[in-house]
């Protein structure tokens, strides 16, 4: 706390000293013309003064300029929209709402040279993706996927084939803070990770932060994926309906009160279960489906107040059952997230913007089995759950053109229900009704200052004080954050950052991510919080006239107290409630904590101009781990250590109606532990000076942990979108091919029989399982 107060004092004194001349303030919102959707990251810039700022997460800006009697030129721009230039008179404070027209309405993309570019921002290791960029990327079964698009960015690796797991700079999938309108999403997977839970239709913007974390973020070691939902069109009602191979989706948005309030509702559902119902015999049911539902309302209560209510609900369900004359049986396996966010924006003054959020998020996994035989009934219900209640307040304080201060506090009450078991048997006296619930409280306060020292130098310094209390154990840790940018030339800058992060929640997960049985548990006295330090440095060059931006970043990340299952441990029978003293083996006895380090370089070139846009990302990295209890204490390569990772993403407007998209990915093979052979060894049991033996058997030789490399992974995806204008709106047909050259990529390896013409030869060989061959898909979408 002392460090935080000192920093706050330092920031305030510097800022006040520099704010001697009373300036004029231009503040307000930047919106999309037509829909009234707030635009995040739009640049408001005064070229003559070389003064500018980006809009915040709610489209708000505040710029101070010296008072005067001469008009000033103000430009407002953001990629994907036509920039505007406007003369303004800096004679008094002014509130201005600025509307920008989308390039979708224009013939070609216009790139404005005055936009705040990569080379001008202090923040590093951050990539923004728009909804359109996500929609342009061809996807498995044609299902557009936010998380899988993020996997195409440098420094981000996917897990196994088809998985939605994110491995950011050597971190595990549990180390990513995925937030949807401020609400954390604990399990972002559908169908064991083949699809993510985010429906692209409702998304406005996605920001990925891999390092140099701003002080407002905390609670995870490796990345922040901040997903903002659309606010809804304030002017007109319109919608979109899409039909794909495995799922259909719909979105409807429009004004509640024109220009003042709006709604958006979107949904997606798969229909594999509909087809399975057609082929299952009478009396038998079996199927699977998932669905997502997003809804958001926003109200402009006054010029100073806005209210946002948003929610997400999604669930996966497997079910099977049969019904006969005197008996029936049904079984269900289900899991899903539900989030709700209430946000109140208030503008205290032209310089002070506040957001107060009340958030709830829930992840539940459950099994239900009900059977009946001759009127005797059996019912088993098992659930595990994590439920959070969060209150958070963030302030954006635009002190002057040199200082933008962020201050905030967050408190989260976690309710863990690792196991709730109900067994009811009509013919038995004793039923089971067992529920373990315990609570944890996580909090954080932060302050940061984005300080433009001069035209060349910018520093973002901040600190976060995080704390956690659960099961009688409390932790409090300071987390310093600093990043800096020095402009060598107008379009060339070097950047560096340092960040410390703590993670107080652990994910108990077996080797494969995406299983719904993964369980979130708190840090305890025995299993301490995870901690990371990350140092990054890079160089960024913009080529504004040609539409290119290129960056190279190097990073080194140290991770302490990271979690892994002990050798021989299994995720079965984890019972976090039995942590201490009970004699029952708890999760704490099954896991071990160790160290990790990851380092490497990331090269990223992005192109966005005229008919073509896309990017090339290349990552060269190393990730190693060391646990005293694993691999005999020797350091080993992490499972997702990947030496080379390449992504090429491109989208080309062939004609006004047709757009061709290509994605090519390459990744070095995953490191795995593979059985190498057997040996005949014995365990001694001594009864006299001669040794006799107690136990014997064939021991398996695994060799070094993760000492075997799978084949490299590479794949080409192609998509062709054809758009037709109709009287009622727009019709889009997309034909896509996943894995276009039919590469047999490894999913997992095992030791199996050698086969010739389908017959086993009796020899053992290493075999590879592949999941997806070439998969063509077609989807149809109408927009009205």
């Amino acid at each position: 706390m002392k460090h935080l107060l000192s920093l706050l004092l330092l920031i305030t004194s510097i800022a006040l000293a520099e704010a001697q001349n009373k300036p004029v303030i231009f503040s307000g919102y930047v919106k999309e013309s037509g829909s009234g959707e707030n635009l995040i990251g739009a640049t408001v810039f005064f070229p003559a003064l070389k003064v500018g700022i980006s809009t915040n997460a709610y489209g708000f800006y505040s710029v101070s300029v010296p008072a005067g009697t001469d008009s000033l030129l103000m430009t407002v721009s953001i990629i994907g929209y036509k920039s505007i230039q406007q003369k303004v008179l800096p004679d008094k404070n002014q509130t201005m709402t600025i509307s920008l027209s989308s390039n979708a309405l224009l013939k070609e993309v216009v790139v404005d040279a005055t936009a705040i570019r990569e080379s001008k921002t202090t923040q590093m290791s951050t990539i923004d993706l728009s909804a359109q960029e996500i929609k342009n990327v061809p996807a498995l079964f044609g299902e557009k996927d936010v998380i899988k698009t993020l996997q195409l960015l440098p420094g981000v690796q996917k897990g196994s084939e088809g998985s939605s797991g994110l491995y950011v700079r050597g971190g595990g999938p549990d180390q990513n803070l995925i937030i949807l309108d401020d609400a954390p999403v604990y399990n972002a997977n559908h169908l064991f990770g083949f699809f993510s839970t985010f429906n692209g239709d409702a998304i406005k913007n996605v920001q990925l932060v891999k390092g140099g974390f701003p002080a407002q973020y905390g609670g995870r070691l490796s990345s922040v994926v901040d997903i903002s939902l659309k606010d809804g069109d304030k002017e007109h009602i319109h919608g979109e309906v899409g039909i794909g191979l495995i799922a259909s989706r719909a979105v409807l948005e429009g004004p509640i009160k024109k220009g003042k309030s709006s709604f958006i509702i979107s949904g997606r559902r798969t229909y594999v279960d509909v087809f399975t119902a057609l082929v299952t015999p009478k009396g038998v049911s079996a199927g699977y489906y998932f669905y997502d539902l997003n809804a958001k309302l926003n109200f402009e209560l006054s010029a100073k107040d806005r209210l946002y209510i948003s929610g997400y609900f999604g669930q996966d369900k497997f079910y099977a059952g049969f019904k006969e004359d005197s008996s029936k049986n049904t079984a269900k396996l289900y899991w899903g997230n539900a989030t709700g966010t209430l946000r109140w924006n208030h503008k205290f003054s032209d310089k002070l913007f506040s957001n107060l959020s009340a958030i709830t998020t829930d992840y539940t996994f459950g099994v239900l089995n009900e059977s009946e035989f001759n009127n005797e009934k059996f019912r088993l219900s098992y659930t595990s759950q994590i439920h959070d209640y969060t209150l958070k307040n963030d302030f954006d304080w635009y002190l002057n053109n040199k200082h933008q201060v962020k201050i905030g506090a967050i408190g989260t009450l976690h309710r863990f229900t690792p196991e709730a078991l109900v067994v009811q048997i009509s013919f038995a006296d004793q039923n089971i009704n067992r529920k373990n619930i315990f609570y944890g409280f996580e909090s954080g306060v932060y302050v940061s200052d984005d300080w433009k020292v001069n035209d060349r130098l910018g520093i973002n310094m901040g600190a976060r004080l995080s704390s956690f209390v659960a099961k009688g154990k409390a932790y409090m840790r300071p987390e310093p954050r600093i990043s800096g940018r020095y402009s060598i030339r107008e379009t060339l800058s070097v950047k560096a950052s340092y960040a410390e992060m703590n993670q107080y929640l652990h994910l108990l997960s077996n080797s494969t991510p995406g299983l719904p049985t993964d369980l979130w548990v708190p840090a305890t006295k025995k299993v301490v919080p995870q901690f990371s330090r990350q140092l990054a440095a890079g160089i960024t060059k913009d080529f504004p006239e040609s539409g290119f931006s290129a960056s190279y970043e190097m990073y080194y990340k140290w991770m302490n107290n990271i979690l892994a299952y002990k050798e021989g441990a299994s995720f079965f029978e984890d019972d976090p409630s039995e942590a201490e003293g009970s004699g029952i083996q708890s999760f704490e006895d099954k896991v071990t904590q160790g160290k990790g380090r990851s380092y490497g370089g990331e090269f990223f070139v992005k192109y966005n101009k005229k008919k073509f846009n896309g990017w090339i990302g290349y990552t060269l990295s190393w990730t190693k781990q060391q646990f005293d209890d694993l691999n005999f204490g020797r350091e080993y390569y992490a499972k997702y250590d990947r030496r080379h990772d390449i992504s090429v993403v491109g989208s080309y407007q062939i004609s006004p109606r047709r757009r061709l998209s290509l994605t090519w990915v390459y990744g070095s093979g995953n490191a795995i532990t593979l059985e190498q052979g057997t040996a005949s060894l014995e365990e001694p049991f001594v009864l006299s000076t001669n040794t006799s033996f107690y136990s014997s058997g064939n021991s398996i030789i695994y060799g070094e942990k993760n000492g075997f490399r799978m084949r490299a992974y590479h794949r080409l995806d192609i998509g062709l979108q054809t758009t037709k204008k109709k009287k009622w709106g727009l019709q889009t047909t997309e034909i896509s091919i996943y894995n276009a050259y039919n590469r047999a990529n490894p999913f997992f390896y095992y030791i199996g029989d050698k086969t010739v013409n389908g017959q086993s030869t009796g020899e053992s060989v290493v075999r590879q399982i592949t999941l997806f061959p070439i998969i063509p898909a077609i989807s149809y979408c109408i927009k009205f």
Partner: protein
Amino acid sequence: MNYKPIFLVLCSGFFLSACSEDFFDQEVAKVPASLKESDIVIQAFCAKDSLIKVQLGRTKPFSDQSITDFFLPDAVVSIESNGLSYPMVYKEQKSDTYGSRIQQSVYQTVDTSLHFVAGQSYTVKASFKGKMATASCMIPVGAPAFTYTIDSVTYREGGDPQYAPEVTSYYATLRWTPQAHDDGYYLVQSASQPKYQSSGIWNKGYYTGDRLLTAADQVNGRYEVTVELERNYSYPGSTEQRQEERFKLLLLKINQDFYLFSKTYLPNTYHGDPFAEPVNLYSNVKGGYGIFTGFAYTDQEFEAIW
């Protein structure tokens, strides 16, 4: 130009080619040499005054089916101590009583009177088809003396009280004081021999009981370890007579190599849970696999009728 027909033909061609059985489950062509070649396995647990013998075997790589057993009778083996090297020769094949699971070849020094000497270090070297494996160990001088106490706990198992058995567990608690420069690795074992009620003769073999490994967990300058000796079940109405038994308690002074091997042995060979993380078997053999280690022990025996 109409792209659609070309596009559809290409799609169909690729898709059909993907449907071959081998696509989804295929042999990996390039595998490292470690999956193809056999390595030397050395195993010996050496106590002072025991004959100098080691067991040798070889690994069976998964991808070489030409190897049908683990025996290694034609290796070149020697053992070194105090600057002297003693050649070892193949003596016999060793298999367990249940069949041929243990398949190791026993090698002994040419001078068959040689014994391991307490406090001395030994290095065994084995070579076979261009491969060389070596391992070293020191024979501990002795293990500390221990005292023990016997306790029991009786409880009734859950379920219907009419049929639930009364269970009595008997425990032995061993206590000892660590020796100077003690690294804290011990193995406590118990074993029992029943006396046949019909003949009144002791059974020749031991039934092995509980065993516990300790690693530097002394409390207040003493070690204290409890092992379960036996668990008796008494069912309601049963008139079964209790059996006279002879118990043996052993305290083994071991080193870190012995400890790590024992700790990983059972989880490595037991594969009951398919979701369990694999357990690497510890080895102190350079250039091969296995364990070559020394130990010393003390034991005590007592008779009991439970």
